[in-house]
């Protein structure tokens, strides 16, 4: 079974994003960029499926600028087999990404597409579900456990009330949550080896997909800041304050 893993190049999760003074977006100049953490978990899960013999080939794909090559190389160094870069400098919305991934899915026919549940830049949490709709495949979102059982995949999902397990017919779409696994670091020999793994260069036009945005960002602002309050000297003071708030049962 072939596994397709889409990955996105985003601001590194340790960097505090700063809103641009002119309110047009978040300043990404000279900011460290990395693979979206949820996508890293998806790559790791694909590798584990391959190690268990459930997957035969791992194809990673990214939609983004030339620099997204670095993100794909990281995935190859972790253990993916080959990569596809769909290059564009435009901002691409989840619906357009899903359409491009649909085209790649039609071409590659993966048994499983593993995606991060959301990217930590736009926080949309849409692409996997949209890809599932466009391909008519079942979806297992926010996965904390993925088990291939013959021609089905059983997915345990992190939901508001706890955990929920669904059984999906393959081919299927799965999106990863935080606790699915802990991604490995690529070893130096594997980083070297990744440089010779195949990477195809494509454009959205190659797939005949219109990526024109549907949304216009009118402005981006910093959220209202909270003022720091007071530090209390003792538990007794806190008891008084809590009683004043009327929350003591």
């Amino acid at each position, binding site marked *: 079974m072939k596994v397709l893993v889409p990955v996105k190049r985003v601001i590194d999760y340790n960097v505090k994003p700063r809103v641009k003074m002119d309110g047009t977006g978040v300043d990404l100049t000279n900011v460290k960029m990395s693979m979206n953490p949820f996508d890293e978990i998806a790559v790791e899960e694909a590798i584990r499926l391959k190690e268990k013999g459930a997957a035969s080939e791992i194809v990673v794909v990214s939609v983004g600028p030339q620099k997204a090559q670095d993100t794909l190389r990281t995935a190859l160094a972790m253990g993916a087999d080959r990569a596809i870069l769909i290059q564009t400098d435009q901002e691409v919305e989840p619906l357009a990404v899903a359409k491009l991934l649909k085209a790649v899915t039609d071409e590659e026919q993966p048994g499983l597409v593993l995606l991060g549940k959301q990217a930590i830049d736009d*926080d949309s949490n849409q692409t996997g579900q949209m890809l599932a709709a466009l391909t008519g495949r079942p979806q297992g979102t926010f996965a904390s456990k993925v088990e291939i059982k013959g021609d089905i995949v059983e997915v345990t999902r992190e939901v508001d009330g706890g955990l929920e397990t669904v059984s999906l017919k393959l081919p299927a779409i799965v999106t990863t949550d935080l606790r699915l696994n802990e991604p490995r670091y690529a070893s130096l020999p594997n980083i070297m080896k990744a440089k010779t793994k195949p990477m195809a260069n494509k454009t959205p036009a190659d797939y005949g997909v219109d990526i024109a945005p549907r949304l216009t960002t009118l402005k981006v*602002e910093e959220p209202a800041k909270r003022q720091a309050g007071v530090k209390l000297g003792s538990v007794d003071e806190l008891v008084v304050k809590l009683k004043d708030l009327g929350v003591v049962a």
Partner: protein
Amino acid sequence: MSVLVLVEHEGGVPKDASLATITAAQKLGEVHALVAGEGAEAKQAAEATAKIAGVAKVLLADDAAYANMLAENVAPLVAGLMGNYDALLCNATSNGKNIAPRVAAMLDVMQISDVLSIEGTDTFTRPIYAGNAIATVKSSDAKKVLTVRATAFTKAAASGGSASVETISGPTDAGLSSFVGAETSKSERPELTSAKVVVSGGRALGSSEEFHRLIDPLADKLGAAVGASRAAVDAGYAPNDYQVGQTGKIVAPEVYVAIGISGAIQHLAGMKDSGTIVAINKDEDAPIFQVADLGLVGDLFQIVPELTQKL
């Protein structure tokens, strides 16, 4: 504008998040509510939804295929109804986030996630970068598909309405997926996302035993729901559904008590709209104190039992 709201319900009762989504929907136009489910519970939920203030009509879709809100079955039902509506609003809950994008793609619409405010019929605000920035976006799609963050809107009154309930039929089981089971945390405490008081514990508690030994009695004293930081959940001190933060639950209680939580950005994104924030932490430079209204610096293993006893 005519607006369809996908109502979530449990035990025959519409969820609080849906009441907030109905408030948001009223800002756009006439509100019809879709209750999908199976049997008596769905019927009961539909009748309860008809009483919600501001709901003009309730659509009840009763089929075994909708019992567990599987996206493969519910999305075609919703998409099939959207010919009559200009907008679809779902809760930004695990169900809403699962189903809404599937509907949006079927309609060829770019969804707007986690809506915080409605600025006009096509203009909305939403958080990006884990809540470090708020974007105002304008949609050019003919139909709108939104997920709504419940803490950003007041809940519609559960009574006062008298809408009609129309039973509809939709697509049956798509045959793509099935529900296997659920492990839900059973608790006598209020639900985390709608509790008036939340007591959350962090990694500083050190173990699952200490987490429950210290946090639970304090929560009981305050009639509070229990939450946790991502670090505490990752360490196995608390189950995943306790997690408060950008990738967990978004809460905005009247009082939020953070115990042994340093205040990582992603945690703050999940609780910074709370009324009063109380922080107990031994590190006086912890970022949590920058957002806390009331701070207490010290050893939580001494402070928390003392606090619980004195309350």
